[in-house]
């Protein structure tokens, strides 16, 4: 996180030198985005805090941890495909889950399906692409997400 903060500061400095007005507008835009999302972020933090307190850690590790096997992927793929949340919320959540014992490959499947497969947004997608293409696309991306998760699983052990 320190490195990222440094990168952000450098970008900010470069932007300031290049164009003051643009930089100012960018800062305001970013902070407004943050404020708009803050309630949602807080709510996710609250729900996760309560949930992690209620659900015993062993249970999480057993079903979503390193040795959970296919069950972990399956749960991640289902939740990821259905859930609808922006990355701004998904990544902090994923970070918390990793600290609570969820394995990286499972998180990878969750993140990838979350981003690429949209069960709830399927009606919107069908309006653009039609039913057949939308279903094919989601199926292919679901398979792709599982492949990415599997590959990360292979490499993360090394």
């Amino acid at each position, binding site marked *: *996180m320190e490195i*990222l*903060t440094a*990168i*952000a*500061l450098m*970008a*900010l400095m470069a*932007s300031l030198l290049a164009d003051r007005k*643009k*930089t100012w*507008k*960018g*800062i*305001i*835009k*970013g*902070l407004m*985005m*943050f404020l708009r999302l803050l*309630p*949602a*972020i*807080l*709510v996710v*933090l*609250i729900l*996760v*805090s*309560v949930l992690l*307190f209620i659900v015993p850690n062993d249970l999480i590790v057993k079903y979503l941890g390193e040795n959970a096997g296919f069950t972990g992927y399956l749960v991640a793929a289902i939740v990821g495909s259905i859930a*609808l949340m922006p*990355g*701004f919320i998904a*990544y*902090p959540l994923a*970070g*918390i889950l*990793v600290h609570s014992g969820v394995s990286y490959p499972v*998180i990878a499947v969750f*993140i*990838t399906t979350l*981003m*690429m497969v*949209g069960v709830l947004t399927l009606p*919107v*997608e069908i*309006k*653009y*692409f039609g039913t057949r*293409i939308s279903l094919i696309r989601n199926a*292919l*991306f679901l398979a*792709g997400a599982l*492949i*990415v998760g599997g*590959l*990360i699983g292979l*490499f*993360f052990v090394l």
Partner: protein
Amino acid sequence: MKKHLTNNWINFLIIIAFALFVAVSFRTGFAPGQAIFKDQFYRFFKEMILFLPVMFILIGLGDEWINREKVERHIGKGSGLKGIVIAVFLSMAQAGPLYGAFPVTYLLWRKGASIRNIFIYIGAFCTIKIPMIAFEIGFLGWKFSVLRTLFTLPVIILIGIVMEKLLKNKSFEIKNP
């Protein structure tokens, strides 16, 4: 807009309820309530509250500097490898959810983008966004982020190629609802 407001209304209700719950827990010495706040919530909150605004400033700056329309002009039929590269880069600069990609694909299709590039665009739009990568690195680490990006890219391109093969001789059209 109305939906946004009602959503926020529920969010604020949950936040206020939680604040009350924590306050009462500390007053009455209700241990589980204190633990939820101290061991869970506060720990997560502390980690994020300084980091998030910095990230959002970075996102805001990126949004100001990268002009989407300029890049969109370069993804045409027969654009080959260059088209793929541009499709990926174009989508990398933006922030937004999956359904935000569909209106753009309609525009791309109207401008003559190939089927392959359209689906590569959707895949890249969803998975390899620069602002999101910053979040990913921050919360899940460099190794995870680099591996996930490296593995996702070929998978997306492959899916684009498969979609093109599947739809080649069929009538393909993107509607603008």
